[in-house]
């Protein structure tokens, strides 16, 4: 048996971008492969679920799980990996906060299934058949995982030891996280393995952020040609930098796009979307209700803007009544 740490990678409700992020380590991945013994990684290696089941409990040093939890299969795999691994790491925004899939919590399961299997323009489904957990077909009984009512972040299903933020985590964050986990003094359990200050702190446009931020109205990114050297908030773009954890080195802002919040909140904030709304809501330079309403036109989807990645982990977890 090798002395190297044994690790697993797994994906739940995710897009595959987190897997890509690991591969994006480029030649650095060789160091990872040299340092650890990968025992399970469905996207890249041919191990099966029964291989994991055959491991003694606690055999894995760490399981890196990306993606949110939406189905019975994902929940079962999360529990299995929790049992087999001494450390569970929520890898990426979906596992940490629910991510983009978490926005489905604005709708009911029935609405989602209907939209996907009946209403979408490219779908032909005259009999209105929806996926079901058990079906009989040609004499065989077929089974599918159950689709839960809500999307959940990983830590609402199993205990999570560490979080690696980002959509997807950047190579630098991943390397930092691996180094922290492999070090002789690992960070305290529950830590998010990224700096604990706001993105504005490491933003290249930081010095152009006005002391007192007041804007006439919000704009959407396609509506203006944003200057490349000035704070995007000061130009009226909804940049979540003030409410988002640093660590990505302002990748989006360097591409002249506002931060959309994928690194989640800092440790002092419970609900990233509400905090972003609280901060940005106050910057409209008007005291007249009609003018304020007009200024909000550039922000047509507050839930999708402020909770782009964190709705499932928010205080309400999703829409209270889903019409």
């Amino acid at each position, binding site marked *: 048996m090798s002395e190297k740490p044994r690790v697993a990678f797994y994906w739940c409700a995710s897009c595959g971008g987190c897997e890509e992020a690991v591969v994006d380590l480029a030649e650095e991945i060789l160091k990872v492969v040299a340092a650890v013994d990968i025992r399970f990684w469905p996207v890249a290696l041919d191990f099966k679920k029964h291989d994991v089941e055959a491991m003694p409990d606690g055999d894995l040093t760490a399981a890196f799980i990306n993606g949110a939890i939406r189905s019975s299969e994902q929940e079962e795999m999360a529990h299995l990996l929790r049992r087999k691994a001494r450390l569970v790491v929520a890898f990426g925004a979906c596992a940490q906060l629910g991510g983009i899939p978490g926005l489905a919590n*604005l709708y009911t399961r029935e609405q989602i299934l209907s939209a996907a299997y009946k209403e979408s323009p490219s779908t032909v489904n005259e009999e209105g058949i*929806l996926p079901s957990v058990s079906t009989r077909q040609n004499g065989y009984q077929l089974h599918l995982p159950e689709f839960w009512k*809500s999307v959940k972040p990983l830590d*609402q299903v199993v205990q999570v030891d560490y979080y690696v933020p980002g959509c997807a985590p950047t190579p630098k964050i991943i390397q930092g996280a691996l180094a922290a986990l492999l070090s002789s003094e690992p960070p305290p359990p529950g830590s998010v393995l990224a700096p604990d200050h706001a993105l504005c702190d490491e933003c290249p446009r930081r010095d152009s952020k006005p002391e007192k931020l007041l804007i006439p109205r919000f704009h959407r990114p396609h509506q203006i040609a944003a200057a490349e050297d000035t704070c995007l908030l000061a130009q009226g773009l909804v940049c979540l930098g003030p409410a988002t954890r640093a660590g990505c080195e302002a990748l989006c802002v360097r591409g002249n796009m506002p931060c959309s919040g994928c690194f989640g909140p800092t440790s002092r904030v419970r609900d990233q979307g509400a905090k972003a709304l609280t901060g940005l809501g106050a910057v409209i330079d*008007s005291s007249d209700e009609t003018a304020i309403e007009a200024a909000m036109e550039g922000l047509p989807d507050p839930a999708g803007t402020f909770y782009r990645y964190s709705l499932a982990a928010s*205080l*309400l977890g999703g829409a*209270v*009544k889903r019409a």
Partner: protein
Amino acid sequence: MPENFEPTIVAFFCNWCTYLAADLAGASRIKYAPNIRVVRLMCSGRVDAQFVLDAFARGADGVLIGGCHPGDCHYQEGNYKTLRRVALLKRLLAQMGIEPERFRLEWISASEADRLKTVVNEMVEQVRALGPLRRSAVPSEAAEEVHA
């Protein structure tokens, strides 16, 4: 709706105006619906959207914010910030399926005890008519019935 439903309304009142109005209402023995739970803050501008969502998440059926009239803020412009923030928060709450009657911002000065009574009574009746804010999806809840 359960019979005899009594709504719970969390009220964030600013120290300088609306809280004093509530105080005056008490001293003047003005009667109004006992459904509000008052949280005193130094300014309505202190109301973080997290406070409002946390109240709803923990079972409040409505949230009322009371501050000084425009121009009267003890801190010059705290209530203007509240006004803008509330405009945005109302849009968010609509997306979250929370009816507009459940969330209200009112300017009530220290002398307007009668107005406080009217606002509270009116809101309690409106929220009573809506019924409890029931969560249709609790994050830890698994699907009971099986389709998909």
